Each structure stands twice: as C-alpha cells, then as structure tokens.
C-alpha cells in the first residue's frame, strides 16, 4: 500500500502505544523523552503500519458514502463481496490474512517526520495447509522515505489467502 504523505504525529504515537498496551513514557512524555538516548519522542517499532490511515484507497476502512462489508442490520452490510480489493486485504470465509511482517530500521520515526512509501510485489508461492486448505502466499516490499528522501524503514509483508477459515486445533 503506497502512501503519498504520512505525517507522523505525537498524538497518534501516544494512542498507538496505548493500543499495544505499551506504557513506555518515551511515546508520550516530551520531558521524559529528552533525557533518553534518542533525545525525544520516538514511535514504537510497529507504528509504521498505521500508514494505512493515510492510504486513501485502503480497503479495510469504511469509506464515507460507501457500503461497508461488516455487520449492520444484517450480518454483512454489503451484498457485494469485496472482490475488487487487493488479495491481502480481502476478508471473509476463505479470506486474506497476514502471514508475516518484517521491518528493517534505518532509523526510528519521530513526530514531525513526513513519510512517503513505495511498494513493489515480491515473490508468491502456494502450499497445502493443514488447517485452512490451499494457501496462496504473496509478498510485498514497502520502502518508507522521510521528508529528506532518506530511506527510514524497509518493510516486507507476506499475505496469505486461505481456501477456508483457519481450523482451530
């Protein structure tokens, strides 16, 4: 998911840290953060995933004026399966799930950074799974650049599309 402009904001970092249950003061207290090795607020290691918020076409966010595929009056709010979404983002029985995520940090993000990302497809492969039938894996590589066009994070994501919902052991 390429994003043209992802402004990294202090409030977003604080809320993100709360949502992963991380109480580290470096994510919200500027005075505390000044005395740490990074010398200021930084973002937690997986924060860059929130770039989805800044992708206008991200398929897993309800769009104003469009039907959403989650439940409303009925179990699904849409009669139309979300087929025009990228494979990795498709939801439902026999759905797209996240299989792997890898990050390489060239530096850590801080409030005030403005990122853009470029993505390219990686490999794809198939195998027969024990708990979900045929599995189709596809990889994508995303590079995040800062306001100075410096590469800050390289991300590699693997999505899997399953033939049926994953059975529980």
């Amino acid at each position, binding site marked *: 998911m390429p994003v043209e402009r992802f402004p990294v904001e202090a409030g977003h970092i604080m809320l993100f840290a*709360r949502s992963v249950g991380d109480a580290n003061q470096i994510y919200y207290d500027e005075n505390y953060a000044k005395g740490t090795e*990074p010398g200021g607020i930084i973002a937690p*290691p*997986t924060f860059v995933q929130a770039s*989805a918020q800044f992708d206008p076409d991200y398929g897993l966010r309800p769009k104003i004026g469009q039907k959403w595929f989650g439940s409303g009056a009925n*179990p699904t709010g849409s009669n139309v399966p979300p087929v025009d979404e990228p494979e990795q983002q498709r*939801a439902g029985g026999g759905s797209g799930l996240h299989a792997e995520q*890898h990050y390489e940090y060239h530096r850590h993000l801080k409030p005030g950074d403005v990122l853009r990302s470029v993505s390219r497809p990686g490999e794809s492969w198939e195998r027969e799974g024990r708990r979900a039938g045929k599995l189709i894996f596809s990889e994508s590589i995303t590079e995040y650049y800062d306001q100075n066009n410096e590469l800050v994070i390289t991300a590699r994501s693997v999505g899997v599309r399953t033939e049926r919902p994953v059975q529980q052991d």
Partner: protein
Amino acid sequence: MPVKASSIKVGDVHEEVVCNDLSRTQIVQYAGTSGDYNPLHTDEVFATKIAGYPTAFAHGMLTMGMTGKMLTNWLGDGRLTKFGVRFVSQVFPGDTLTAKATVKEIRQENGGPVVDLELSTVNQEGKEVVTGQASARLDP
C-alpha cells in the same frame, strides 16, 4: 537502559507477559490506531456468521506490537535494527500472551555489538502464536 554486550550470552532467554486476558476493547483500540478496521477483528456477527470463525480475533500486528514492547523494554529505546515475525496461530479475546527472546548470536556490526534474537510469543496454553527474529544494538 541499553543492555551491555558483556551482560548477556548465547542461550539467554528474556521474557515478559505482554498482555493479560486480552479484551475486545483493546482490539478495538488497535483497529482505531492502526487503521485496520477489518470486521474480522471487532465485529462478532461478521466474524462468526459471515467469515466462519468461532469468534472475532486479534490483528496479527497487535501481537507483533506487544512482542515489540518486550524487546524495547529489555533492549532500550531506538535500539532495534531488525524485527520480523510470522503469525502462526490466531490470538483470541481472553488470551494471555508471553513474549520470549532467546539470544542466538552476539556479533560486531559497524564497530559496535549487535545481538541476534529468536522470538516466540505463546498464549496461556503454551501454544506459539508468533515466531520471529530481531536484531538490536548493544552497549559495548
């Protein structure tokens, strides 16, 4: 509180309980901050009746985020150079997760010590939900 290379050795294990009785509300919080509003994670009606799962389940990235908290609490802020995971089993509301890191190697990179770690996050039944690797800069 970065870790000194001399204070750890290959085979050492560090672990932290990173969530206790995971609440549906925390999953909702994560949907809100990450921007991943897939109803599989927060919409019980959709997850069970449409997608065919026993209940809604957490985002894999939430478990990765909680595993990352163990790493930064242990190794210090801004020290990670690499962090990668595989999502091997689903995490459900009510789960209690323990994230573990095992020291595989301590080596020199760009003139300073770096640790390579193998990661495993398990639920209350000892079932692995996430496996992975990470590397971080240490103090000499």
